[in-house]
């Protein structure tokens, strides 16, 4: 058992739950008021309003004009551009999050091997994170510009033929994955690095004493131990990937054609360029179902991993 190996104190979960339940039931209405108000303002109100928009004919200038039932949902589902965007968003989120998790974990392991202090390197790692996404997009757009771009300039100096990733359907999509990965891999690396610091030294020593090599130690001890953390990071990046908007807006504007038209970008176009706010609200609800389904799946896997660890 992993628990006994690392000497964790046994926790009586049932007793803890009962204790928490007792504590909750003693909350006075005044104590609950701030949370209730926050729930109303930040969760319930926008959700109710969004549903109301989705069920009515609403334009940007005149929301909630007329009850239309499920017409907006039907319009959204009959729109190939939107249904295609759901698929694209899912592929983008899964691909980008997976690449970032693998790259970030590799980076974190390399950092961990250096020691427990990041020093100046930590600051460098934070640079892509603190750069505004719009500036990230502008920089990459200039870098990848087919005429006068830095990439083609370098290729030209090396005597190689120019490339134009943003002019090609697959190239543009992959370029966005690369840009997102460039920006978010350090974030993943820092989180995984923190998780790696939590792996008990005794556990490593026990495995080494049992004759495990470095690879075996990594695959059979370290990664299983930090698996819940890795899955939590994956969940975070999945949701972040679904929400991607800035770099799509700046770098490809959803193109070429509809190749990079993600759901967030399409919803924005529907609401703020076609002014069909009712349809955009329906699209938002449908999109949130897709995000919710994928997130629930990963969360379930994570819960199972946590239970297995215990």
């Amino acid at each position, binding site marked *: 058992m992993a628990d006994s190996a690392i000497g964790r104190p046994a926790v009586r979960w049932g007793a803890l739950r009962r204790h928490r339940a007792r504590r909750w039931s003693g909350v006075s*209405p005044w104590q609950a008021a701030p949370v209730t108000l926050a729930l109303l303002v930040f*969760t*319930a*109100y926008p959700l109710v309003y969004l549903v109301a928009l989705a069920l009515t004919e609403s*334009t940007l200038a005149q929301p909630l004009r007329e009850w239309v039932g499920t017409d907006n949902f039907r319009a959204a589902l009959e729109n190939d551009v939107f249904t295609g965007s759901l698929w694209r968003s899912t592929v983008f989120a899964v691909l980008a999050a997976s690449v970032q998790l693998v790259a970030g974990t590799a980076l974190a392991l390399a950092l961990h091997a250096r020691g427990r202090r990041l020093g100046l390197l930590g600051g460098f790692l934070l640079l892509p994170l603190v750069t505004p996404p719009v500036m990230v997009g502008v920089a990459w757009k200039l870098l990848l510009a087919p005429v*006068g771009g830095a990439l083609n300039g370098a290729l030209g100096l090396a005597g190689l033929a120019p490339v134009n990733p943003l002019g090609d359907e697959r190239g543009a999509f992959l370029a966005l994955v690369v840009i997102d990965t460039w920006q978010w891999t350090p974030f993943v690396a820092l989180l995984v690095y923190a998780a790696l610091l939590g792996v008990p030294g005794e556990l490593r020593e026990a495995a080494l004493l049992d004759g495990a090599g470095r690879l075996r130690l990594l695959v059979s001890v370290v990664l299983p131990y930090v698996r819940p953390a890795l899955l939590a990071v994956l969940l975070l990046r999945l949701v972040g990937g679904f929400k991607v908007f800035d770099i799509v807006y700046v770098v490809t504007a959803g193109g070429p*054609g509809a190749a990079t038209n993600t759901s967030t970008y399409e919803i924005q176009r529907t609401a703020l360029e076609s002014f069909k706010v009712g349809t955009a609200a329906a699209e938002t609800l449908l999109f949130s179902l897709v995000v919710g389904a994928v997130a629930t799946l990963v969360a379930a896997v994570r819960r199972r991993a946590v239970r297995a660890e215990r």
Partner: protein
Amino acid sequence: MSRAHLPHLLSRRAVLRGALGAGALAAAGPLLGACGGDGGGDALDPAAKPKLAGETLKVLVNQPNAGAFEVLRRTFKAETGADIQVTPVPYDKLLATAMLDAQSGAGQYDVIMYWYVGLGSLAEGGVLEDLTDYIKANPDIDTGDLLPSIYDPYTLYQGRRWGLPFDGDTHILFYNTELFEKYRLDAPKTWEDSNAAAEKITKDGRGEHYGVIVEGQQVPIILGCTFANRLVGFGGRFLDDNGRPALASEQAVAALQSLLDVAPHALPTPLQTGFDQALPAFLSGRAAQLEFWTDHSVKAQDPKQSKVVDKWDVVTLPIGGSNTAHNTSLDAGFALGVSKLSKKKEAAAAFVKFAASRKQNEAQIAVSTSGSDPVRTSTLSSQVFRKSFGRAADVVAEGLSGKPLVWPNGPEAPELLQTLVDELALALQGKQQARQTLEKVQSAWEKRLG
């Protein structure tokens, strides 16, 4: 009540249920309000003579025209004592900003500059004040002098006037005379000439020069203009005389085919090419042809911005197919209206009248940074117009005096144009043929227009 009883009355579920119920009630307020209210303030008094001295009007403007409002601010203040506070917004966010201002009830602007394609949306949405009676009550507006080709498309919706024209935008074809001479080509008169020149220059230019810039970014004001220029050249229309879609016509298909034919010879790559890519390519002398707004001639002659000073010329938009009549397209084009939420409607209307006057129209086109074009017949025959527009003057005057292509401007227009450019982008991407593309657009437009 003792604390012991609270858990029964205030369980977590009860608290959450109460919170959601209150949220629903909170949402119902604006819902009911929005269903019933028209969002308007006091109606504009058409005969009022407002006191302007000391007033400050807030004006929402198209960012490229911000320079024009600097000129207007000085002259308006000097003549009336009133000031204006200008908020420039990028052209593609102008309509949304105006609508959100009205929808939110903020009423931050007294005067709203709008792209005429949004006229129906703004009028139907209760964003603009009806100026019909004001215009009738103020004969000094001199509507007879406003260019007939733009006055109605810019301001007339459902028989009412909602603004006054401010910037009469059209496209013309700029070409690099040095490159045309180098490759022994004549100025293009037809789209076939233009395409042939593009192919030759790009092929012989071997990556150093490109024969044409095709602006194909998937937004109506970019890719829509590129298509509209060919559509009018081939004799096509967006809508017929009855307001029905006319995009499945042979002329429209030929126009799109012409665009698809030239795309492989354009500056790479059309779908990525917007203003940011197009202007430097032409002004640096790398690309030989560019369809653009008339005020580009000022930039092309500015040695600080251009390497093609005195190495360019313009022609009116070419013709194509069996069409023999040169016409231009009303690409972009802006008018000024009064916000329905303004609390200074009479003063705002006075400013709109002032800004659209003959004197101000001439004053603005004299300034290279104004981004403004003629909206009045008298401006087209003025000396200042000749001087400012130079070699482009005749071409601009010919286009605005003729029967230019008018874009849809009803409440459905933003959606119609978005559908159009989405399908055009797929065609440029090679995913569908010209006829198939336009039949899809025709079908979508028919469905939307009922």
